[in-house]
Structures are given as structure tokens and as C-alpha cells.
């Protein structure tokens, strides 16, 4: 058996393999693949957590990842149990409609929880991954998986109106909170983790709004999320995208343009809504987009060159080629959207650009301030206010959740007593007999 220990890879590659397999499975169309995929992702985080320096802290911290996996197992089981009349199981229409709704809720629950859109584990992006030394970027995997789940499972939840609308509201709130937190955090890596959450949430709103075809939303999301994920990964390897003024500006522009492109169709389509909903969409969507644009531009601080004489390198390095690839998708996606019928009203098309342009322009001003001192002080106050507002919201959510948990615990205490294993359970037997044999028949 000892030879097995040599075959098992170390915790870092083993967790990585599990996560990679999970990510791939989420994309597969097979019935149980998404559930197995998220289960493997949860297993990857567990594997890293148990091998970390503080397993007693890390294992419970990431144990919530089994919840989305459980929701997806339920969704898959519903689909297996209710395959519809074509599979030879004639299910009454009312039962089918009810369970289709439950299936949609389960899928959206899993995706929203991974996207930090539910109050149960929202602040996970504040924390580095379970592998402290290598894993500052690991939590960024989760919102990305959440959005991919929403996209791949779209046919199973987009048709259920109430689920679609509720998820759009929750995702918009998440985008706002993520932008606020990215603005409030001092560390660039933490800000980037929250920007990844913002990208996923905004893309989710775009998906549920139906403004553009799903694949267009995916291409725009790849642009925005890919930029932030690359920046996050690069921070662990020398922060190449921030070295030197040219690189810093290139990545600032990439980050800003991809975020603006992701938010633009959502705001532009507000022209097709009723005036009240149009204003609501423009305000609720515009403010987070402006804030995220500011963070994208202003927070990407140029890192000093480490060498006195910069080494001549080819243009064909990943840090220079990646922006071209990420930016290339933007016009392609928008042109394709237009080709298939996305034609916003001109006034709204222009209005939709305002938040991103405003946020980006203010961000540029913060990078190169005309007058040092006053602006910086105002910025610090605003950042402090953003932190306090986020903590207030999270505090309120936590109070609500812990209240509900306490209530459930109080209600569940008799369940523990039901199963103590002592001789008093004989009374339970008598109660069971009384209910089953006398009370129930007489009540009918």
C-alpha cells in the first residue's frame, strides 16, 4: 500500500487537478456533470484547506462550497426523476411545473452562492484562498464558475419568470456591493477578487435581461473577467502588467474598456423598458459600473521597474499579447449582437456610455492629480465610507442569517432529543402509536 503514497500528487497539484476537472465538467452538457463539477471544485478547496498550515481554520471556512454542489445534485436528480412524457413516465402537468420551478431555484441558488449573491457566504472574496502562499487568486475561481453555471444551465432557469427576475435583482445588488468593496479595499489583489465578482454578477444580469444572446454575454464576460483574472495571477509572478508606464496604461485601458463593454448593453437596453424601470436600471446599473471603472483605472498603480536598465524583450510576451486577445472579443461580440438584432435607441446608447466614461475619466484624474492633497484626502474619506457601508450591509445580513439559524437550532433541539438512544424513547414509541393508530384515522 506504501507505493500508493508515491502515486498521490502533493496537495497543491491534487487540488489544482480537482478544480480543473470541476471547471471542465461545469461546461459539459451531461445531466450530472455540473453537480459533479462543483463537487470536485469543493473537493479541491477541501484538499487545499486540509493540507494548509491551519486546517482547523481553513477546512470550516471553505466547507460552504458543498452547499452549491448539493443544490446542483438536487437539480440533476429532479431532471432524472421527471424526464417528461417522452421518456415513458407520464407526470401530471402541475407536478412537472412545480418541480421545474424547484429545479430552476436549485440551479440559480448554486450559481448565486458561487457568485457571492446570497447572504450566506458573501464576503469570501475578502479572504485569500486556502493555500496562503500561492492562493491569493484562488477565490476568483468561484464567481467564474458561478457565471459559467448560469450560462450553461440557462435553458433550465431562464424560462421561469419569477426565478429569472429575482436572480437579476440579487445579481444587480451583488454587482453594486462588489464594486463598493473593490473601491473600499486598500490591497489591489483583494480589489481584483471583488472585480471578478462584479464581472460575473453583471454578466449574470445581462444574461437574465435577455438584452443580447447568451454567447455574446459570455464573450463580453471573458473579456472583463479574463483581464482581472490575468492581473490577479500576474500579481503572484512579478506584476508584469504594471511594470512601466506603457504596460500600466495598456492594462488600464484593457480593464476599463472590457468592463464598459460588459455594462453597456445592459444600460443601453433600458430604452426598451417602461420609464420607471429604465431610470431604475440606469441608476442601479450605472453607479456600480462607474465605480468599477474608477477602480479599474485608478487602482492599477504603475510598479517601478526592478532593473536599472530594462531588459529588451520581444513584443510577443503574454502580458502584451493578452490585452489584444481580450480587447479583440469586444467589437466582435458587440457587432454580432447588432447583427442578430440588438439595436438600442441612440439616446440610451449614448447615456449607457456615461457611467463608464465618467468613472474612467475620474480614475485617470486620480492617477495623475492636478492638485495633490485635497483630492487624496477626499478619496480616503470616500474609501472609508465605502468600507463602512459594506460592513453595515454584511453585518445586517449576518444578523438576519444568524437569527434564522438560531431559530432553526431551537426548533431542531427536540430532534436531537428524539435520538439520544436512552430508554425514554419508549415514550416516543407510544406517541407514535397514538398518532398513527388513533389520532390520524379519527381526524380523517
Amino acid at each position, binding site marked *: 500500500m506504501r507505493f500508493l503514497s508515491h502515486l498521490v500528487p502533493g496537495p497543491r497539484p491534487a487540488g489544482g487537478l480537482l478544480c480543473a476537472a470541476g471547471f471542465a465538467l461545469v461546461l459539459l452538457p451531461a445531466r450530472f456533470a455540473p453537480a459533479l463539477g462543483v463537487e470536485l471544485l469543493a473537493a479541491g478547496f477541501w484538499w487545499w484547506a486540509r493540507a494548509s498550515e491551519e486546517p482547523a481554520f481553513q477546512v470550516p471556512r471553505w466547507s460552504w462550497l458543498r452547499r452549491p454542489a448539493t443544490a446542483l445534485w438536487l437539480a440533476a436528480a429532479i431532471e432524472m*426523476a421527471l424526464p417528461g412524457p417522452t421518456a415513458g413516465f407520464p*407526470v401530471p402537468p402541475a407536478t412537472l411545473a412545480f418541480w421545474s420551478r424547484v429545479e430552476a431555484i436549485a440551479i440559480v441558488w448554486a450559481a448565486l452562492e458561487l457568485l457571492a449573491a446570497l447572504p450566506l457566504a458573501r464576503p469570501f472574496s475578502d479572504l485569500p484562498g486556502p493555500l496562503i502562499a500561492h492562493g491569493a487568486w484562488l477565490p476568483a475561481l468561484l464567481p467564474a464558475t458561478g457565471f459559467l453555471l448560469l450560462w450553461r444551465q440557462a435553458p433550465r432557469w431562464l424560462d421561469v419568470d419569477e426565478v429569472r427576475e429575482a436572480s437579476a435583482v440579487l445579481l444587480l445588488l451583488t454587482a453594486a456591493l462588489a464594486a463598493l468593496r473593490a473601491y473600499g479595499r486598500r490591497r489591489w489583489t483583494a480589489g481584483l477578487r471583488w472585480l471578478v465578482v462584479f464581472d460575473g454578477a453583471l454578466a449574470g444580469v445581462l444574461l437574465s435581461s435577455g438584452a443580447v444572446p447568451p454567447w455574446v454575454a459570455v464573450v463580453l464576460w471573458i473579456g472583463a473577467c479574463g483581464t482581472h483574472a490575468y492581473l490577479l495571477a500576474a500579481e503572484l509572478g512579478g506584476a508584469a502588467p504594471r511594470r512601466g508606464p506603457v504596460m500600466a496604461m495598456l492594462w488600464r485601458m484593457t480593464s476599463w474598456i472590457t468592463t464598459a463593454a460588459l455594462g453597456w448593453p445592459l444600460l443601453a437596453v433600458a430604452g426598451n423598458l417602461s420609464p420607471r424601470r429604465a431610470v431604475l436600471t440606469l441608476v442601479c446599473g450605472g453607479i456600480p459600473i462607474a465605480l468599477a471603472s474608477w477602480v479599474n483605472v485608478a487602482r492599477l498603480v504603475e510598479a517601478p521597474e526592478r532593473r536599472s536598465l530594462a531588459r529588451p524583450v520581444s513584443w510577443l510576451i503574454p502580458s502584451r499579447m493578452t490585452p489584444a486577445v481580450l480587447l479583440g472579443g469586444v467589437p466582435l461580440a458587440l457587432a454580432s449582437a447588432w447583427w442578430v438584432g440588438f439595436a438600442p435607441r441612440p439616446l440610451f446608447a449614448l447615456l449607457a456610455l456615461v457611467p463608464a466614461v465618467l468613472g474612467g475619466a475620474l480614475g485617470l484624474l486620480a492617477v495623475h492629480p492636478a492638485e495633490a492633497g485635497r483630492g487624496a484626502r477626499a478619496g480616503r474619506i470616500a474609501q472609508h465610507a465605502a468600507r463602512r457601508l459594506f460592513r453595515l450591509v454584511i453585518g445586517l445580513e449576518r444578523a438576519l442569517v444568524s437569527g434564522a439559524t438560531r431559530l432553526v437550532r431551537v426548533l431542531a433541539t427536540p430532534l436531537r432529543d*428524539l435520538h439520544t*438512544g436512552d430508554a425514554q424513547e419508549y415514550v416516543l414509541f407510544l406517541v407514535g402509536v397514538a398518532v398513527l393508530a388513533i389520532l390520524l384515522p379519527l381526524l380523517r
Partner: protein
Amino acid sequence: MSARALLADPALPVALALVAALLLVASERRRRPLSGSLGLLLVLVPCALVLARLDAAGWILAPLVTALVAAALARESQDPLPGECALKLVWVLGGAFALTAVGFALLALATGVTAPPEQWSVLQLGLSQRMVWVVALPLALLAGVVLLGGAPFHFWVADLFQGASAALAPLAVAALQGLGAMWLVRRLAGLEGFGDGAVLAGALLRTAAIAAFLAGAGTLLLQRRPERRVGTLASLQGGLALAALAISAGRGPLDTMVTAWLVPWAAHLALALSGGALLARLTPADPAAGAPGGHLFRRHPLSAFAGLYALFSLAGVPGTPGAALWLEIARGLATHGQSGLLIALALGWLAAFATVMRELREGFGAPTAVRPERSVPRPVRAALWVSGAGLAMLGVARLVLQ
């Protein structure tokens, strides 16, 4: 043996469960005198025979097997726990048999006949007092429901897993639960001829199944001892059998259900409980978060996986043969539009799934450089492999048939 025959015939899974139990008896030979081992054999072999020929099991076998199991537990004089367990078994199951006998007597008095199908035909004529059969029918079903171990009668199953040896408990519980299901089948025979009775029995079985799933799910998540968790998983299986009967009762002869679902269910239960109960004995009880894994998991991870496979099958984890049993009942409930019971079943299944995943994580725990010096005895590991391999064969047979 073809895949269809393997799934339909309980002989092979039950034989493997018996082999696993005998391996454990052999591993305990130093601790137990020869007479004790022979005494255990006298219980294990009848339990296995009952499971192998469950479709032919008569009424009398349930009290007989109960008495045998209680006697075997009472013989264990070194430890007070089995004796307490035996006492409880006699109180609960003895009480249930007595109440059921009252129900039988009332029905016989009301109808003048003793065979259930004839009793339903007489009652359909409307000559008897409604009050009498309304009380008598549930009492007549009571022993079956208690034997199946669904909540609120779930505690005896967990007690048996905690109190009895790992060799005895799985086969004893599976045999008693199987006999409970057959008790209900025999009692409900011909009920389709008595509409009011079918409605009442259906409602009772549905209520009992819902209670079994909901209370089972709630208590399972709160269980700290691995043995009691396996016991609660077994009581969820009892809920599954109740749901199967709730679908079929009063809708025609139950023979097809018995051969197509009930007999394979009992055989699978015996095999899955054999692995699950043994694994529970080797799993750390309620370890702290981030604590190192259990002895078996660190020293023999593959054997631990074999045991986990049995536990996964018991919980109906997709890909295991147990999942197919859960799925068949879920489909039946959906087809009959019984969403309330289906919700309870889904909650029970999710709780079972979450529990076995917790078991896996707690079992392996945090990695540690210290390798346990003493290995787990070979017969114990062989028993885990026998149950795991038997279930894998059932799983492959299902895949082939699909």
C-alpha cells in the same frame, strides 16, 4: 449469471453480506468463546435465509427473528449495551406485535374471517361499524411500520447498530426491515377491493413515509456517532419502503412490486449495511475540524473507499446501485402526483448525501506524516472489500441493463 438475474435474484448479495459477517465473526474469535460464535451463526444464517427468500416470508417469521436477535444480544454478557439494546427491542417490537394482534382480532371480530383479502371484501359490503375497522386497520399495519424503522420508530435501528456487534447488526436490521415490508404487503393484499380502506391505508403510509424522511433527515444531520448515523440511514431506507408501498397500496396486486423492487431493495440493504456498519466502527466519532483522519483511512485508504462505496450506496449517491432504488420511488411518486411525499424524500436524500460526504471528509481528515503502526485486521478489511465489490457488481449490472 446475466445482469438481469443478478439484480432480480437476492441470493448473491445476501450471500456476500453473510460472508462479510462471517469474516467479522472470524476476526473476533479471540475475544469471543466458540459457543458465542456458534450462537451468532444461529442468528446470522436464518437472517440471511429470510432475506434470500423474502417473497415467501410469512407472518410468523417477524416475531421469530426478533426473538432470535434479542436472544443473541442478551447473550453478550461482557458489555451492558447489547443487553440494554435487547431489552429495548423486546419492549418496542413486542409492544408493536401485541398492538397489531389487537388490530387483527378487531378485524376478525368485525368481519368473521381471518384472511386479509376476505376481510376487505366483507368490509366493502358496509355491514361492519366504521369505527371498528378505522381503528383496527392502522393497528394491524403497526408492526410492519415499526419493523421498517421509519421515524418515530427509528431509534431501535440506531440502537442496534450501536449496541450489537458489526457482524450481527447489518443482517439483523436488513432482515427485520425486509420482514416489516412483507408484513405490510401481506396485510394490504386485496385491499383494492375495499375503496375506503385503500384510501385510509394510503394516507397512513404516506404520513408514515413523510415522518420517516423528515425526522430521519433532521436527526441524521445532528448525529455524532457514526454507528447511529448508519442506523438513521437504514431508517431512511425504511421510509423508502413505506413510500414504495404508499404508491402501490390499494392499486392492485403487490406481487410485481415485491419482486421488482422490494426483494432487490432488501438484498441491497443487507450488503450496503454490512459495509457501512463496519466502516462506522472504524471512523472517528465527532472529530474536531482539521483533525487527522481515522486509522483505517490513513493506513488502508483503498479499503476505506470500499467501505465508503457501501455507505454511498446506502445514501443513494448517484452512480451507486442504491441511487437507482431511490430514483425508482421518486419516479413513482412523480407519476402519481404526490409532490408532498416527493419533497420529503428529496430532503431525506439530501441529508443522507450531505452526511456521507461529511463522513468522507472527516474520515480522511487532515494529512499527517505519522502512519499508524498497527494495521486493521485482514478479515475486517476483507469484509469491507466483499461488501464494496458486491455493490460494485450490482452497479455494473444496472449499467449493463440501461
